[in-house]
């Protein structure tokens, strides 16, 4: 029988986390030994019937108590700080990430690369590249767990979450759903496949996707009638979308929000929630008319729209 003790270290963050883990294990083993040995020693030395000094011990009680409060406290704060430091690295992706979209639904993972390649329960990535996953749920809460990369993030309906990693070892590793999501929760598993960059490019083109995500998004954009208000001279005044992504948007109530994926998604599904300053709440909701994958494609399209030509409309 196999007796594996540790998962593969296949990402840049795996090693720092394993180091923390080993330190904690060492600390714990030390503590356990200390207490275990002390107790065993006392049990032997002071068991009833043994002739030994049982008189009052004249121990400086308060001093000892304070010591064993302060020392553990300092140790705890030290471990916390170390953990927080690694946590920041783990949660904040560096610049230059390539984005891949993931939609979780009962009970499968649907992956979409920007180039248009789609996968089910598999995620191909190139080694050494920083990859950021945009995670969306079609139904209940799931969780995208990659043990070899030591990363996990819940996939929550109604919002986008994200996790990032930089794979360091070519190979194939587990992908697990890690938030109970119903009957086939334990079957919502797959593989993440780390490839040499050249092999990855070959894999992408061999997939021969009909269109990129942005192209799909453009098709949906006109099919759903978005171009009716948001493009050209329309009767209805709607905010222009060119160059929108990533920019600050002033709202009617005076707030300024950033136009990220979540903002765009909310604008499509709950348009009256945040009304752009200077516009009327006229946009209908597309809830029920568009699924999570299509939303991501639409967002990819909007992201691809460059800054608008100042001579075009308005």
């Amino acid at each position, binding site marked *: 029988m196999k007796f594996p003790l540790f998962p593969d270290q296949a990402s840049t963050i795996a090693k720092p986390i394993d180091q923390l883990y080993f330190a904690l294990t060492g600390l714990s083993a030390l503590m*356990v030994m200390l207490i275990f040995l002390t107790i065993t020693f006392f049990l032997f030395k002071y068991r009833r019937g043994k002739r030994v000094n049982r*008189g009052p011990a004249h121990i400086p009680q308060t001093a000892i108590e304070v010591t064993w409060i302060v020392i553990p406290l300092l140790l705890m704060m030290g471990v916390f700080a170390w953990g927080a430091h690694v946590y920041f690295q783990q949660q904040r992706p560096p610049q230059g990430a390539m984005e891949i979209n993931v939609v979780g639904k009962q009970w499968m993972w649907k992956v979409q690369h920007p180039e248009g390649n789609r996968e089910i329960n598999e995620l191909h990535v190139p080694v050494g590249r920083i990859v950021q996953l945009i995670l969306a749920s079609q139904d209940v809460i799931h969780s995208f767990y990659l043990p070899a990369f030591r990363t996990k993030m819940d996939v929550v309906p109604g919002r986008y979450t994200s996790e990032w990693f930089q794979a360091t070892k070519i190979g194939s590793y587990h992908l697990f759903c890690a938030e109970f999501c119903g009957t086939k929760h334990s079957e919502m598993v797959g593989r993440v496949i780390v490839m040499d960059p050249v092999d990855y490019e070959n894999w992408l083109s061999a997939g021969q996707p009909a269109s990129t995500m942005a192209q799909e998004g453009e098709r949906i954009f006109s099919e759903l009638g978005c171009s009716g208000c948001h493009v050209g001279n329309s009767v209805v005044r709607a905010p222009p979308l060119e160059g929108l992504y990533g920019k600050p948007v002033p709202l009617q109530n005076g707030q300024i929000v950033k136009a990220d994926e979540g903002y765009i998604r909310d604008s499509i599904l709950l348009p009256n929630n945040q009304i752009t300053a200077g516009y009327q709440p006229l946009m209908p909701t597309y809830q029920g008319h568009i699924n999570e994958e299509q939303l991501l494609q639409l967002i990819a399209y909007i992201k691809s729209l460059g800054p608008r030509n100042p001579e075009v409309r308005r």
Partner: protein
Amino acid sequence: MNTLVDSPAILDESPLKTAEPPNYLQEGGSTLKSWLLTTDHKRIGILYLYSIIFFFLIAAVAAALMRMELITPPGDMVSSEMYNRLFTIHGVLMVWFFLIPSIPATLGNFVIPMMIGARDVSFPKLNLLSWYLFIAGGLFALGAILFGGVDTGWTFYTPFSSAYSNTHVVAMATGVFIAGFGSILTGLNFIVTIHKMRCPGLTWFRLPLFIWSLYATSIILVLATPVLAITLALMALERIWGLGIFDPKLGGDPVLFQHLFWFYSHPAVYIMILPGMAVVSETITCFSRKQIFGYHFVAFASVAIAILGFVAWGHHMFVSSQSIYAGMVFSMTSFLVSVPSAVKVFNWTMTLHRGSITFHTPMLYALGFIGLFTVGGLTGLFVATLPVDVHLTDTYFVVAHFHYIMVGGMVTAFMGGLHYWWPKISGRMYPEKLGQLAALVMYIGFNLTFFPQFIMGYLGMPRRYHAYPEEFQIYHVLSSAGASILGAAYLLPFIYLLWSLKHGKKAPANPWQATGLEWQTPSPPPQHNFRNTPVVDRGPYDYSPEKSEEEVIYGQ
């Protein structure tokens, strides 16, 4: 010895010249009605004892079936639907119908009034009502199980529970809701009792640490449980009428449910450990014949755990999409709450120093508690460490962590307390050698069951999985083997304790020569506990290890 006004005869263990007064089991009769309408805290404690054991057995069977399924990687013994119901039933019953009431409602109810020299709790009728609420809640839970079960996990996360599950969620949630009010009333009763019913001379710092711990437990019971109640009610409203405040389609936030749920459920775990610590403080002092080391520190540690326990809930939600800053705050508070627990462990250890130690069954359980709770608590540090928890959350590491504390800690302490106070409750002694054997077997079985789960967890084995990849099998096999040993170890006391009710040696008033007030009255006690109200003139644990070497101690 504390004085009992006007009646030194109570302490005399030689046969009384006058006829023995009836004890609480006899007084008032032994009809079903006298039990079901009792307001005697001792009888109510026993009613709870039988009820929680009933639920424990059902939950244990669920666990056994799960462990059998997990021996092989594919899900081939039960269906997925069934497996999901099994772990839900196991969690719901163990948490709310066994662990939360366990020590407080059984041993607490029985012992607290006696320990403070009172005749009963402040509100005896409310006490009985608490039990009926517990039973009513239990009936709803049983109904939910019999009519097909629930598959949401004991955590009832939305939107799965409120909009997707096809099982009897509302019935189960109602059961928990009702039982929750029972536990609130128990906590309320204890708080008022401890404040107002202490006998003359019994100041706060002369109270046994059992009382301090149960007082802290009661604070959590009354403040945290109502939040669970309203949260489950809101989830049920959403489920029944689609009144969504957790529904993202309406702008609702499914993660809000998690915040509200864990705001209760994290303090709840302290409800499930403080009483265990309470028992250890009593037994470790008694069986090392020694004053507790650092009484004030242990007392205040209980209160600190209760307070700090309220501000750590977000550590269950590090990967829920809560902000990283929230994560930092909760990680910090989680580390802080480990300090008072560590203080307790150190103090118990030092209590052994220069004591006169015997290895009676309650002592074995106390020592087992210290060992297992220490491991469980230390592994808590792993999951409090943010980036490590990102990897470990929702894996078997967490399962192992909380079982070390809940089972290795609380259940072990419960067994210890049950054995310790068994002579007082039943008037009989249990067979000591069997008791020691069961404790040892339990310790071995427990470690074999749960230690491999730590390793599995770091490897990435997720929780609540019905089927799993082959590489994890060796650990599951070890775990299941351990579980069968653990099961046998629990069965043994069940059998011999029942046996002792008829055939055990009759217990003297104070078989352990312990110092608590509950031991200054016959075993079993009369209905009103004391013939005359005790008067206290010294602190607890007034033992002398030197003198103890000369004394006669039961069983030595």
